[in-house]
């Protein structure tokens, strides 16, 4: 008799424990669900109150972004590249005619999803306005003259400066903030910083390479400090031979010979001549046969996308420093590059993989 009562008590006890655990788990789940709903509510409230946003652009203007921009126009290639890099590409409805990266851009331009709104210094405010954009991003140095016209047309304009690597990071931050792509922006920035750090580490033990960077021939235009190219050269372990001067300036053959560059890089996005032509021009300059750069065949002529890489301060700066690092210090990256570089992606992949 006593054993039967004990068995029933055990079974009832087990049953009760099960019920209690289920009840506890259910209530816990319920609790968590409540918390989750509360959090979601908070998030949507936050999202709703993210805008309006007040930002200060590169021209010192305070701009109000009242809601998430859904139609964006970019006035310069570097800006376009940033927009696509942070994932805001689907919001882009208009770009300048020189924007050509990433590759999807050409298809989008073709099927009319993205409209061309003029050149960089020849931007067409009317075309921009016709697209009814919520946001227009322009370059502060080259396009500031269009601000009054664009504002007159009732558009929201933000101007960004793209002169240095620091500018690029700042711009990514600003643009990702404005388009509420903060995470993506942070990720891009981190990748860029990592890339630059990696390159710096590889090249810092090596002595800086003396490099002459030319952006035009006949006459020869070189770059000094305060230029994007010089920035890149510094990061990639080089020293621009004319970095005591600032900006862009004409140099004559004698100055080049005195400067004794060991590497010459010609970036000919603008100059419409073939790379062979440019190389033979360089070789024909008086005194150049004596240069180490010519004797050791360390002359690199960059055209097409490779030239864009070095001339556009945008999110591809990572690729740019890798490519330039390999040009300046091939021994650190174990990849040898040809004299004429146009499509660079395969090289950069090789370089990054080591």
């Amino acid at each position, binding site marked *: 008799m006593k054993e039967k009562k004990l068995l029933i008590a055990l079974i009832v006890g087990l049953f009760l424990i099960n019920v209690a655990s289920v009840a506890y788990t259910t209530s816990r789940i319920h609790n968590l669900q409540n918390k989750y709903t509360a959090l979601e509510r908070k998030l949507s409230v936050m999202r709703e109150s993210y805008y309006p946003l007040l930002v200060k652009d590169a021209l010192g203007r305070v701009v109000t972004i009242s809601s998430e921009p859904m139609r964006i126009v970019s006035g310069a290639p570097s800006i376009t590249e940033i927009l696509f890099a942070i994932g805001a590409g689907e919001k882009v409805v208009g770009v300048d005619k*020189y924007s050509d990266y990433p590759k999807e851009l050409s298809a989008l331009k073709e099927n009319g999803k993205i409209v061309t709104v003029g050149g960089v210094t*020849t931007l067409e405010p009317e075309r921009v306005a016709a697209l009814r954009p919520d946001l227009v991003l322009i370059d502060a140095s080259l396009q500031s003259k269009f601000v009054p016209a664009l504002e007159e047309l009732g558009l929201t304009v933000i101007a960004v400066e793209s002169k240095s690597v620091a500018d690029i990071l700042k711009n990514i931050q600003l643009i990702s903030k404005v388009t509420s792509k903060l995470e993506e922006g942070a990720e891009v920035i981190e990748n860029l910083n990592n890339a630059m750090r990696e390159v710096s580490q590889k090249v810092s033990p090596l002595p800086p390479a003396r490099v002459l960077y030319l952006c035009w021939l006949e*006459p020869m235009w070189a770059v000094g400090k305060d230029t994007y190219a010089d920035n890149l050269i510094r990061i990639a372990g080089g020293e621009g031979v004319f970095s005591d001067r600032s900006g862009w300036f004409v140099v*004559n053959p*004698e*100055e080049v010979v005195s400067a004794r560059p060991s590497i010459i890089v010609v970036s000919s996005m603008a100059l419409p*001549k073939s790379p062979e032509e*440019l190389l033979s021009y360089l070789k024909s300059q008086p*005194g150049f046969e*004596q240069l180490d750069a010519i004797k050791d065949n360390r002359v690199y002529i960059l055209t097409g996308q490779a030239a864009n890489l070095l001339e556009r301060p945008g999110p591809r700066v990572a690729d740019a420093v890798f490519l330039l690092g390999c040009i300046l210090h091939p021994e650190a990256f174990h990849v040898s590059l040809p004299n004429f570089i146009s499509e660079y992606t395969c090289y950069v992949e090789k370089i990054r993989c080591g």
Partner: protein
Amino acid sequence: MWIDWKRKRLRLAVYLTLLSLSLSLALMISLMIGSYALSPSQILEALFHPKDPVARNIVLNYRLPRTLLASLTGFVLGVSGGVIQTLTRNPLADPYITGTASGAALGATIALLTPSLPLFAVPFFAFAGGLLAVLLSLVLAKKARAGPIGFILAGIAVGTFCSAVLMILLSLFSQQAHGILSWLYGSFSTSTWTKVKIVMPLSIPAVLYLLTKARDLNLLLLGEEHASQLGIEAGRLWKFMLAISSFAVSVCISFSGIIGFVGLVAPHMVRLMVSSDNRFVLPLGGLTGALVLLLSDDLVRSPVNPFGEIPVGAVTSMIGVPFFAYLLWKRGEKFGM
């Protein structure tokens, strides 16, 4: 009058000698100027007993052709300026009044922008452009039958048209505008022996021919009517002189870009300081032009210049204008009629 006549010949000889000596001196000094530091003894060494191949290369293959080109261009511009001022009987004329500069600029720009053309094609296109512009002005002026003034107007019209087309091209190809403009401004930074070898044999005979006609140019100052009655084929001479001087100017600016001021002012300096007789104005004006341009280019190349390779025409104007203003102030009545 006999005394004056004899003195005249002496004066010309004296001035010629003085200017030639100054020019030779300037040439020698120019070889010592440049951003690659070389002492005078090193330069002599480089010329005659070369030890350092870099020095030899720089002095022989860069400085020497550059100084030669600069002085030759200055000479051509000075002589042509005097000729054109006489032919158009207009003291405000310069060698580019016939549209040569704008035509050459347009030609050069087209060559720079056409991808299939090599860089050494640029001077040839510039030259062709300059000559075509002059031809067009001549044809226009002939149809209008308006004499020298008509020709000036035609030249201005053609020049303006070429400039307009040039401006359109520059705005269409705004990325290349900077580079193209720097070519147009006029500089000797890209001088090579190849350029000298082309410019010299073409421009020197032309300029020498112009010089031999200095006496007849004096007669052309009286106008075609009076000049023909004095025994020269005025019409033919006028066209010939114009063609030859435009040719010489075109050759020079095709290789060094458009350098202003020298062609306009050098002849006037001679007129104000010496005589209006073309036998003085042409040779002395040429030498003055050569001297001024050479010294200006020296300044551009000199290490004391903090700005680097600025357009040499700007320097020429900056040093020339104050001096010219002074001359005008002191002796300007010679211009008053």
